């Protein structure tokens, strides 16, 4: 299975850190007030971040 592509729309991200906290494999980290994808290879495409982001700012593309 290929690694999913995680798209962060920085314009929409308000830095609430919900995605960072609920990611089971610590793919994401906060970088100031924005979320940053730091370990994309660890993503298991559970979609928790996309599901819980209140700001439509994160998308997981499985392709």
């Amino acid at each position, binding site marked *: 299975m290929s690694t999913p592509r995680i798209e962060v729309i920085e314009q*929409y991200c308000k830095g609430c850190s919900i995605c960072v906290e609920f990611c089971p494999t610590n793919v994401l980290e906060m970088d100031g007030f924005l979320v940053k994808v730091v370990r994309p290879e660890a993503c298991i495409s559970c979609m928790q971040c996309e*599901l819980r982001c*209140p700001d439509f700012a994160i998308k997981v593309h499985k392709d």
Partner: protein
Amino acid sequence: MAFDYDKYLRPGKLPHIWCPGCGHGIVLKGLLRAIDACQLEKNRTAIVSGIGCASRLPGYVDFNTLHTAHGRAAAFATGIKMAQPHMNVLVVGGDGDGVAIGGNHFIHACRRNIDMTYVICNNFIYGMTGGQFSPCTPTGDKASTTPYGNPDPTFDIGKLAIGAGATFVARTTAFHATQIDKLIAEGIRHKGMAVIEVLDDCPTTYGRRNKFRSVVDMMKRFKELAVPVAKAATMSKEELDGKFVTGILHREERPEYCEQYAQLVKRAQNL
């Protein structure tokens, strides 16, 4: 595959006005997934709201939308459904809008069992107007108008809706994101008044006054305190104290108001 929310959103409206971490965005996404699951046509769907943070939701979605007076969403929605019974009518609002200022309209919409889906985002507070306590603020909690703790008992929206006559009543939380769309979809498919209460987090006016360090703490609290209906049935009243029972709380079949009214019109015309 990532869900395509963009097809239901009005272009150029994002980012929305809600605060960082506000659960209303999660409810909006759940609502759009539910609409997609039920394959509602845009032209045959109306989303109505009153005033408040949650009531800003229709501004972002590409359907027939109506942003009405404070608490009057159910009244306007009743008007739409009566005039155009083929429309799918959804109402979105907060706890203050739905059961405080609009409490009267809410209970009568439930009583009539008119075919609409009412999504109440219960964030325990009046967020937009500055954090005043609402009838859903838990007893003892702080709001801008109850700095020493709220002395009032709270409304149980589920029981209120059941008592008033709603035929589908469900509850979930902003933490249970997948349950939101499942319950809303069930509510849309249900013929009659469907009330879905989504317990929501307000980090800005409720959380910071009540010792929640972050929005994540509020989400985790929902996870800890939510009890599914089946499990709640095995628990005593004392054990359930302070917990939220989630899932479908009530479902029954009863004649729907628009159909009853259409029959009445037919009867009157034959005279």
